[in-house]
């Protein structure tokens, strides 16, 4: 009898991480443990969104910040979101709509198990910070239907004319005073202390300063960071539950020092396969990434020596690199200004200006758009954005399509083909420029 011996699978290669990524992972793990322990510890939980995340205000009431978008990302990275999306579609949600929502709803239907393998608690309150995305409103109406908990709407007007008006600020401050703060006081049993808020905001500024220095380090050649794939790790704490904390200050200081050391050593970014080789292409990327095949997606870039030097996605939880900082002297007004200024709350001409500026200031080879099937807030208008940025910068643009957390919309071969064509196009442009010189 012949015995067939199956070949042993090669051991999975250890993913390389820089020290800041390890630290960030520990912070996130501790936060999830705190969240899943909330039913035991008695801490109350508020669910809210990354754009318009009011972490400093939430902390004033001793509430724990839970972000369904981040949960969906975690599900995507762990390859669980596909099943969650299908579950949501099975119970009546359209295949056409946002997969973050469906991943969240599917996760809830399957027991709401968080990334630490424990059940996430039901929220005590939904803080519907309606900022830059229409779907947010429906998402929390859908969650409210399930959890039957109190829901607070904070409406951030859209910057349709590309500016923040006094009327917008006044409207938002009135909502803070008349709706948000009284409701959070009632739910938490904690009286609002504006000086406490000021203290948290002071801490936010310190972390924001360091974040900006990290992001702007990509102006160096070679860039010491990847401002899209790596950038997603960098924004985690400040866009999540850590803005305004000592942990965030420590993390961003640590990260900045780490990045400065890479600049001094003339090193490029750390990728999952170790230090990136020679930097061949510098790109600006518009749009969120795909999370279900995140590592595979990133590899398509670093294998070709492509590094992302600036991205719009790392601005969805706040745009800090043009000067905005939370202002402790105007605590409520500054929260309003923060919400109004997040990337997806900016009109298309503002987004085009930003991206064209990134291409110029970071000396990029062009703009790449990753268009996300289920995110109209980002995606509607991106083809015009690409053309306008190409026109203004004279640099070529490219367009790929995928989805955030729905694996059905990630076509590796298709994306790889397009990227390779794009890199060839950049080479041709360079050759033409050399010939003309």
């Amino acid at each position: 009898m012949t015995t067939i011996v199956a070949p042993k699978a090669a051991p999975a290669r250890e993913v390389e991480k820089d020290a800041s990524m390890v630290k960030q992972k520990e912070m996130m793990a501790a936060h999830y443990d705190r969240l899943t322990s909330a039913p035991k510890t008695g801490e109350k939980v508020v669910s809210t969104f990354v754009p318009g995340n009011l972490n400093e205000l939430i902390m004033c009431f001793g509430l724990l910040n839970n972000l369904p978008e981040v949960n969906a990302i975690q599900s995507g990275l762990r390859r669980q979101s596909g099943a969650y999306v299908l579950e949501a579609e099975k119970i009546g949600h359209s295949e056409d709509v946002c997969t973050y929502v469906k991943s969240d709803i599917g996760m809830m239907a399957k027991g709401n198990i968080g990334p630490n393998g424990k059940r996430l608690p039901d929220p005590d309150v939904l803080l519907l910070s309606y900022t830059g995305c229409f779907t947010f409103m429906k998402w929390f109406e859908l969650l409210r239907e399930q959890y039957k908990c109190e829901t607070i709407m904070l409406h951030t007007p859209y910057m349709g004319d590309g500016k923040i008006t006094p009327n917008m600020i006044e409207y938002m401050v009135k909502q803070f005073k008349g709706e948000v703060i009284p409701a959070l006081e009632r739910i938490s049993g904690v009286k609002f202390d504006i000086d406490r808020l000021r203290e948290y905001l002071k801490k936010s500024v310190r972390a924001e300063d360091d974040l900006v220095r990290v992001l702007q380090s990509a102006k160096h050649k070679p860039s010491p960071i990847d401002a899209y794939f790596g950038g997603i790790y960098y924004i985690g704490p400040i866009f999540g539950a850590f803005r305004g904390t000592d942990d965030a200050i420590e993390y961003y200081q640590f990260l900045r020092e780490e990045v400065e050391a890479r600049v001094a050593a003339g090193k490029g970014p750390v990728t999952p396969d170790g230090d990136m080789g020679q930097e061949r292409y510098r790109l600006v990327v518009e749009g969120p990434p795909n999370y279900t095949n995140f590592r595979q997606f990133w590899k398509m870039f670093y294998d070709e020596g492509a590094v992302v030097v600036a991205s719009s996605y790392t601005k969805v939880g706040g745009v800090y690199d043009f000067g905005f900082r939370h202002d402790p002297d105007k605590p409520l007004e500054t929260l309003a200004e923060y919400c109004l200024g997040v990337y997806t709350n900016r009109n298309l001409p503002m987004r085009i200006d930003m991206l064209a500026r990134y291409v110029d200031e970071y000396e990029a080879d062009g703009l790449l758009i990753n268009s996300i099937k289920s995110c109209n807030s980002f995606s509607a208008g991106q083809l015009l954005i690409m053309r306008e940025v190409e026109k203004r910068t004279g640099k070529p643009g490219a367009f790929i399509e995928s989805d955030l957390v729905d694996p059905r919309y990630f076509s590796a071969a298709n994306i790889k083909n397009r990227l390779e064509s794009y890199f060839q196009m950049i080479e041709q442009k360079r050759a033409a420029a050399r010939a003309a010189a």
Partner: protein
Amino acid sequence: MATSLNGSKTASIIGRAQALFDDLNFTAAREWKAAAPGRKVIGYMPIYVPREIIHAAGFLPLGIVGGGDQLEVIHGDAYYQSYICRIPRSTIELGVSGRLDFVDGMLFPSICDVIRNLSGMWKIMFPSVYVRYFDVPQNYRDEIGGNFYVHELAELMEGLGELRGRPVSEEELRHSIAVYNENRRLVRELYTFRAKCPWLAPGAEVYLVLRAGLVLPVEEHSALIRDYLAAAASEERPMRDNCRIVLTGVFCEQPPLNLIKSLELAGCYVVDDDLLLVTRWLTADVETEGNPLQNLALAFLHHSESTAAKYEPDLKEKGQHLVRAVRRANAEGVIFACPSFCDPALLERPMLQHVLKDANIPYIAFKYAENSGQMQPIREQAGTFADSIKLWSGT
């Protein structure tokens, strides 16, 4: 639907409305503008803008609801990915092809991210046009959302005044509010009439009459509704053994006219709908005395339609507007017709369906695009739904 209208007054009115509907060059609006110097046309998209302010400036509000199923979209598709709905691409087609070259301003109301982003695209593509994203409050307290909205209205009024070269006065606005109050009363009357005797006012006719209001000056539109009501009431048409349904989800991208006709051919009288909500967004007369902007704001906060683009602060109240619409129109079921890739309609749908289920109201759902051509599946689905209601309701 009865077809023996040859030569009747109704046929003549519907013929005119159909011609306006078919005209993708907006000839009527062009002629209105050309009839006197200084006239301007302000386009607006769904779901709601205060047309009173445009009217008060002496301008013509022109409703733009996409290109329908007769417009070949050539350029528009180059601006959008395949997973974006149809209305922005056909609207861009209208713009790029010069069909809107007489339009002096465009308003993009707060309804969804696609229309929101289209406002920025329009600014870039048509830089000489007055473009405004029209935001509305999601907070319904007078001193919070109300104040914000009054400022937004004032900015719009100021912008249109600048376009005219002379500020719009409160007196002009009060007059326009009264004119639109009259129009809304007539639209409500039209809907009440149809709910009472849908065989005399078929869904497709009511739609065309309503749709004419997007192109005609309001005074002419009011006259058209009056004429139609009188003509339809005197028409002799057979009452069919159809079921009575509320059509919902159709508040932005428009269904093809054939879809509305198909529902009735399949045995469903449409007795209420959320088509062209701008014509009846405000559900009661707006006060004509006092501060007109304040009055428009109060009407918006306290007397306006519920729809997916509006936040409903009260969980118990969520979806009840649909149950009330069913009861009010004595309907037997609801048809959810949602445009493909329409975030507001499709995200809202499961919540509304849960409310209907709790209220024991039957429903079906399907999707469409403004250029859908194949109606047979919809007709079959609607026909089965009608049969099931007729055969099994009450058992």
